[in-house]
């Protein structure tokens, strides 16, 4: 089976140690995490992990089930690139002299839709968001003029689906909670 990039999104309760719980599932199967971002989700008290990993679908399904099996994980999903809209952010630091001496840099920035976020006597910081390939390609171009520092974020993603699966899940769980509470009152 072919290995491709999968994006796994995991929604968890906001508890200490969740990252560790999720990470060990990848470690156990010797899967290398390509990128990882963790942040608050749009729902209060719920954290969102976005993980990219190269693997086969078979294995990803097993991994997602094992992630979801952890008690404090609400839900985990996996997507191929065509099922999501995703982006990464990159920052590039170049010497201010290069910027001033090389008009090609300005052209590059227009072409890549990048912008300068700070400039001083010593350096200029350039920001761009886009796919991993485009971010790399801008780096390759800029590096002809010597990039001092280059960082990229992990991937963030939203689904193309019209179904909001997490909200549906939470609504279902709320119904179950009410049922469980009623059952124990009896």
């Amino acid at each position, binding site marked *: 089976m072919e290995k491709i990039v999968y994006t796994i999104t995991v929604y*968890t*309760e906001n508890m*200490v*140690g969740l990252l*560790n*719980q999720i990470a*060990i599932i990848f470690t*156990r199967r010797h899967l290398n995490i390509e990128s990882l971002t963790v942040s608050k989700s749009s729902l209060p008290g719920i954290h969102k992990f976005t993980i990219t990993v190269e693997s086969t679908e078979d294995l990803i*399904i*097993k991994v997602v*089930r*094992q992630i*979801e*099996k952890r*008690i*404090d*994980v*609400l839900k985990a999903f996996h997507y191929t690139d065509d099922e999501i809209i995703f982006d990464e952010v990159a920052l590039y630091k170049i010497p201010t002299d290069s910027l001033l001496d090389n008009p090609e840099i300005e052209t590059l920035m227009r072409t890549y839709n990048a912008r300068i976020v700070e400039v001083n006597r010593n350096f200029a910081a350039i920001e761009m968001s886009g796919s991993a390939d485009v971010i790399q390609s801008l780096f390759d171009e800029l590096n002809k003029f010597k990039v001092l520092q280059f960082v990229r974020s992990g991937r963030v993603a939203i689904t193309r689906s019209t179904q909001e699966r997490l909200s549906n899940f*939470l609504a279902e*769980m*709320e119904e*179950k*909670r009410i049922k*469980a*509470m009623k*059952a*124990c009152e009896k």
Partner: protein
Amino acid sequence: MESIRIKGAEALLRALLEEKVDTVFGYPGGSIITVFDALYSFRDSIRQILTRHEQGAVHAAQGFARVTGEPGVVFVTSGPGATNVITGLADAMLDSTPLVVIAGQVSSPLLGSDAFQETDVVGISLPVSKWSYQVRTAAEIPWAVARAFYIAREGRPGPVVLDITKDAQNEMTDYVYEKCQFIRSYQPNPDLDQTAVEEAAALINGAKRPFALVGQGVILGEAEEALKAFLTKADIPAGATLLGLPAVAGGFPLMKGMLGMHGNVGPNRKTAECDVLIAIGMRFDDRVTGDLKTYAKQAKIIHFDIDPAEIEKNVKVDVAVLANVKESLPAVTALLKEASHKDWVDSFKEHEDEEWQRVIEPEIHPTAGPITMGEVINMVSEKAAANAVLATDVGQNQMMACRYFKLQSNRSLVTSGGLGTMGFGLPAAIGAAIGAPEREVCLFTGDGGIQMTIQELGTIMEYKPAVKIIILNNKFLGMVRQWQELFFRERYSSTILQNPDFPMIAAAYGIPGRKVVKREGLAEAIDELFATKGSFLLEVEVEENGMVYPMIPAGTNVDNLIFGD
């Protein structure tokens, strides 16, 4: 609810009482001393069993949990106390045994400072526990305990760890207990999907050669009777996994024996012949399936399980019925047509006869030569009470005991299945005897395994649980020796054992014992074992090169049985 103002340690014990805990297994130390101090005041309502090693405590709690169905509770201190229970946690995780392990931890201001006896217990235990959580304030204790018991018990059971800092045990809190009824991120019992039920019933109704694989899920779901009704209605023969064996205890015509590497001939061969394979609360362990590439390829496969992560983890299935088997089995049974598969069911007979002639009869009724393992087990089994619990260590003694000891009652087997933990037997048997004092606990162990946790004879000396210990002494680490004979050109590397005088060791602990070398003395010695009140250690010198047959060499086809004859 009114709250009372008490110390964290007392809050912990009151919470345990709310969860109906009456026994804890443990070992004190600097970071759990406050809890043990509080336990002193509760000693009339909570019995404390001081084992001789923390590993003994956790295995005893596992044995207790297996026979009672209730979580085993363990108290250990930080650092080495906690690391010594890791093997038991891993064992309980693989075998779905409910445990609540309470580990003391250094005071919260010291955390992360490499303080004396500090270990990252949550970090170490996470991969081998269902839930592991650090409690740093007394106020959190009731909530954490309620959640721990809910998680340990509900759905697929498993071990839970609470790592409680010393300051949390010491500080005062306003205690009020509320049982946990619901965790929104954890659905222990998936909702039964009617479509899956109908699909499963349709496949079974169309089957000509249906075959069921019975796992421990049936016992954990208390679905023993539902299983019998299911098998009977559609006339489905079955095999059991190691841990599934007591699910159909006491001889049931459709139960054809054990599956897997050292299982019975019929169930293994028929796995490769059936047209519909019905897995019930089992997880397609490699010791059951052999080579997955060829496993039951001819059959449609139905998998009943409570744990979504088990579905298609190892074997692709045609229908998955996700639910507690206690719910799903009756639902499917209701849709089954009454059927008879007489020829198919009868076809097991020739395999049973073959196994009897080639393996079983020479093993349990040898006419000459040294005493055999199967001979001892068979004789003990015949003399044991109907409510007996079989406990085993790991290795040849375990496979032989599970093959030849006839389980006659529910929850009658205490053995380490998934992890295969040598040293499990003695402490687990102690826990079983403490959990079910009215039952006769028979432990089969080896000369290797017993020495891994032999210090627990001290626990027997102190608390006097009745454990009938039978050491099958072949002067070898027998299972490894068997592999060395078969696959490593008889190069017996580190498997020959020099042993102590076991009855003499038992005597030092005040436990009566006896050693048998000759066949003539065996029956009488077993009579003495059972006639003696309380524990007894019987050492039997058995055939040194005894082999467990039949055997499916690891990683080969499920019907590739070798007999060694």
